[in-house]
């Protein structure tokens, strides 16, 4: 059995998105900046894509900027809001400890430029409260940037309530909605969102194309200098096939959010219940306020990378937050932020299931993970120590 359970990393491009892209490679291949008919047809297509994306977010088309992906959108949003605040002497930025590195590393860079950054605690369930945000905001705050849903543990933040706090205090609110877009409802007006980032490939669109929503009135600072594309805010010839694919995929996903959630959530919860039968395991991230496709566990006494390799042998594509998979000595900053200690964070497993998952596949996932955990524990001296009492179980 083959199961792709790494949809939080990337998704398969849908047939509908692919069909929307194909004409723009070989037929309508014009440059939207060109004055001739071929170029202008590409320009018209892009205009319609911008309108469709805006409709999905409930904003104006003039507030949509196409970027090279989610990371670029995060970079540009945060730098722009920070510099806008700095013009008025506001140099305080608020975020959380478990943001994506596209956000955290941008904040680090701004810290070196003299900004101060407060990273709010996300608690064991991986959720920050509006009260925390309210308490952290000062007269100097230029920006609050908090992700809509976490990419590793799937916890969903109270975005509308946080947005309301920011709006009331007159602080710009950006949300990294890379994991949420197409999976959770977004309404930037109702949710008081001033800036938002997303990436096409997380909802069955293509890679290398993203969206930055920026409310009119917030001046954007260029990350890429160049021509007059994207109203001068993002240089470079537009990725028309990518933009067309993204718009189609977003429209498709937004039209099916409720039905996908209704189908996925019971399957996700079945998977969670199955994996909780494994002794000394723990679910990471809130059980209820959770992305419909996200399951993330820590298993004591084993290491994540070996789990992934053995699951891969069984046809299962998954991911882990262990140090060996992060390429550093520390396990995932997300797991550390929710209070998981190194010992167990190394044994983490993320399964992010897609809309086409079947009940039979869920059963196979449960069976396979159980087998792999049991096998690796059988050869783990760490597990032996836990079982014979030399070391104490943490979970």
């Amino acid at each position, binding site marked *: 059995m083959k199961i792709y359970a790494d949809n939080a990393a990337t998704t398969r491009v849908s047939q509908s998105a692919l069909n929307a892209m194909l004409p723009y490679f070989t037929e309508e291949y014009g440059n939207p900046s060109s004055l001739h008919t071929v170029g202008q047809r590409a320009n018209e297509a892009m205009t319609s894509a911008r309108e469709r994306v805006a409709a999905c977010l409930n904003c104006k088309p003039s507030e949509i900027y196409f970027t090279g992906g989610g990371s670029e959108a995060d970079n540009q949003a945060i730098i722009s809001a920070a510099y806008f605040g700095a013009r008025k002497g506001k140099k305080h930025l608020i975020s959380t400890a478990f943001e994506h590195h596209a956000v955290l590393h941008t904040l680090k860079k701004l810290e070196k430029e003299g900004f101060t950054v407060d990273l709010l605690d996300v608690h064991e369930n991986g959720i920050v409260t509006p009260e925390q945000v309210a308490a952290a905001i000062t007269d100097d705050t230029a920006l609050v940037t908090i992700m809509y849903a976490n990419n590793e543990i799937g916890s969903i933040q109270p975005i509308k309530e946080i947005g309301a706090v920011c709006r009331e205090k007159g602080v710009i609110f950006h949300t990294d909605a890379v994991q949420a877009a197409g999976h959770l409802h977004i309404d930037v007006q109702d949710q008081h969102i001033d800036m938002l980032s997303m990436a096409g490939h997380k909802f069955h669109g293509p890679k290398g194309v993203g969206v930055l929503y920026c409310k009119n009135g917030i001046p954007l600072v260029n990350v890429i200098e160049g021509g007059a594309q994207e109203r001068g805010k993002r240089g470079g010839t537009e990725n028309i096939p990518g933009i067309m694919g993204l718009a189609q995929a977003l429209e498709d996903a937004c039209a099916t959010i409720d039905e996908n959630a209704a189908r996925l959530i019971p399957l996700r919860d079945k998977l969670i219940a199955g994996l909780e039968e494994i002794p000394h395991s723990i679910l990471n991230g809130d059980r209820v306020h959770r992305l419909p496709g996200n399951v993330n566990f820590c298993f004591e*006494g*084993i*290491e*994540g*990378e*070996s789990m992934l*390799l*053995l699951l*891969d*042998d069984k046809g299962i594509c998954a991911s882990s937050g*262990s*140090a*060996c998979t992060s*390429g550093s*000595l520390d*396990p995932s900053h997300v797991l550390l932020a929710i209070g998981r*200690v*190194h*010992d167990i964070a*190394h044994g983490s497993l993320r399964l992010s299931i897609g809309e086409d998952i079947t009940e039979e596949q869920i059963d196979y996932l449960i069976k396979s993970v159980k087998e792999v955990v049991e096998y690796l524990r059988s*050869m*783990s*001296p*760490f*597990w*032996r120590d836990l079982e014979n009492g030399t*070391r104490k179980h943490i979970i």
Partner: protein
Amino acid sequence: MALYSGKVMDHFRNPRNVGVIEDADGIGEVGNPVCGDIMKIYLKIDGDIISDVKFETFGCGSAIASSSMATEMIKGRSISEALELTNKAVAEALDGLPAHKMHCSVLAEEAIKLALKDYYDKNGISYDESLFAGIGEDEE
């Protein structure tokens, strides 16, 4: 996965000499759970020969493969041969390890050395301390 050589994957999928020797003559353990890898080597020694060896490993694919390969390389060998086993030799026998995984082969070399030191200590055999200098200290 292309991350590892075929040999690493073979030793990871079918590890040789996994287990415990209950009446081991020497036991060596290195690493810790915080770093995400622990390697434990059990030796049975007859005269000067390592007649049996088993390992237990908590760690990534290359940690398990390195343990497996290292045990194969010392089984049936003399103590002095085992003491000469280097991490580089283990990594080479596995057709190489990615740069950030080389420390897994270091763990294998050190676990074997510690097991031999344990054997010497238990049997009151004197040895040159410099053979084991720095081993078991935090390699991270």
